[in-house]
């Protein structure tokens, strides 16, 4: 196949020019970006989750402020902005993460998209895609197995235990890279926010991993059931197992050193040292 270079360039030029304009219907990339990065903490017209409801957000603040906040939430909060401080307080201190890959153009597009969705009677982003059926004991048990990795996530996502622990796991507990999730259910104020969070984990470490391996809605329900149960039964965070782990490591290392000492117990003693000191049997015979 031969490519018509000038024609291809022309198409590319117009394609990029149309992407750059904000007022067009939102592109698939913008929607995908919203679903991947915003939906886990915000609704449009469905009430607050971890973060505030975004319906009519442009009426609450200027476009410039909103873009600045989306680009770097922490910077705006640290600047002493009173509105930002209030949002943070309402979110119980859950700081919005700086989204990887965000820039001014994309922030503008996202706001236009949110405005368009706000104008609708009911946005499809008003509610969750996760069922609101009652949680059962079977859900709790499945959630625990999913958390530990005994049951695999359908989408191939890694088990929670790799980075998180909760009270009551036994052994040396779960991983320590991420936060203890014993009180996650309480921190996120319940089922909806937690389920939304799990549908597209927005944390910087989890996002790249779970983007390619999303957790299914039934699995989310099981995890929510497990974490709800943990929050309600376990009083405090799991005690840190770092010391026991380190001691186990030292124990293993000492055992290995003893093995080396035993395996090489004749090291340099049978031949070399007597040889060097002139006490080898062969020498004495002469």
């Amino acid at each position, binding site marked *: 196949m031969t490519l018509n270079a000038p024609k291809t360039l022309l198409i590319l030029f117009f394609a990029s020019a149309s992407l750059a304009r904000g007022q067009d219907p939102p592109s698939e990339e913008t929607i995908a970006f919203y679903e991947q990065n915003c939906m886990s903490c915000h609704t449009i017209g469905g009430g607050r989750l971890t973060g505030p409801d975004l319906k009519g957000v442009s009426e609450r603040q200027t476009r410039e402020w909103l873009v600045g906040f989306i680009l770097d939430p922490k910077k705006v909060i640290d600047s002493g902005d009173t509105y930002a401080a209030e949002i943070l307080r309402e979110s119980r201190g859950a700081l919005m993460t700086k989204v990887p890959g965000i820039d001014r153009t994309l922030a503008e597009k996202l706001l236009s998209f949110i405005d368009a969705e706000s104008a609708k009677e009911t946005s499809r982003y008003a509610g969750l895609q996760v069922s609101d059926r009652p949680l059962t004991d079977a859900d709790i048990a499945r959630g625990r197995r999913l958390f530990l990795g005994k049951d695999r996530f359908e989408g191939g996502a890694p088990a929670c235990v790799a980075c998180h622990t909760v009270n009551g796991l036994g052994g040396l507990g779960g991983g320590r890279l991420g936060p203890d999730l014993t009180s996650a259910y309480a921190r996120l104020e319940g089922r909806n926010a937690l389920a939304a969070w799990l549908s597209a984990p927005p944390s910087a*470490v989890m996002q790249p991993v779970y983007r390619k391996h999303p957790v299914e809605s039934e699995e989310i329900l099981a995890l929510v059931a497990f974490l709800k149960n943990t929050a309600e039964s376990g009083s405090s965070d799991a005690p840190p197992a770092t010391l026991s782990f380190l001691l186990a490591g030292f124990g293993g290392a000492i055992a290995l050193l003893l093995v080396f000492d035993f395996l090489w117990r004749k090291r340099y003693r049978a031949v070399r040292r007597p040889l060097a000191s002139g006490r080898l049997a062969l*020498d004495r015979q*002469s």
Partner: protein
Amino acid sequence: MNDFVLLGVLPYIAVVVFLLVTIQRYRMKGFSYSSLSSQFLENQHHFWGSVPFHYGILVVLLGHVIGFLMPTAILSWNAEPVRLLILEVTGIAFAILTLVGLVNIVLRRMTNRLARRVTTWSDLAVYALLLVQVISGIAIAVFEGWGSSWFATSLTPWLWSLIKLSPDVSYVAPLPGIVKVHIVNAFLLIGFFPFTRLVHVLVVPNPYLWRKTQVVIWNWDRSRLRKTT
């Protein structure tokens, strides 16, 4: 410093330097490929340095390589909490063994007169890099566990993105500082590798593992020899 420079550019610089200088040194100064062992100068303290260090680092490195080449195998193994614990405790035990060996190696170098005399600046650089590497690795295992699992999910995709020449640092950029220290220092080690005694890793006489034993016997009277000289 910029995450992209450290995690998306430095690895390439390190690997290019490694390849070019390794080959150049082999072609120009092939006989300098040596561990420059000082075992003949002192062999008692040496045992408690070299042996634990080498067995430790071999097992720990093997773990990293398996995590890189077979991430799903590691995750399947870790799917049972008891197996995860076995793997992690084995890892930390061999890591501590490595550190014990390394500390002994450094102490011996500093305290033994003969060993100190044959120590070069490149040796000191190797010790500094290795100490940072091993200590940061242990700190990660202890404070940021369970690394065997999250290495497979966060580090492996990033490493493959490097190999595919489209570095995606989003996997590793948000990880804790100590993990980035471990990563960046690893690539510094790779970059410095061909300038140091570490090149002996490439010329390990593996056939010694399975060749027939050779016994060296002096069949002349050594005491008479000594008297006459």
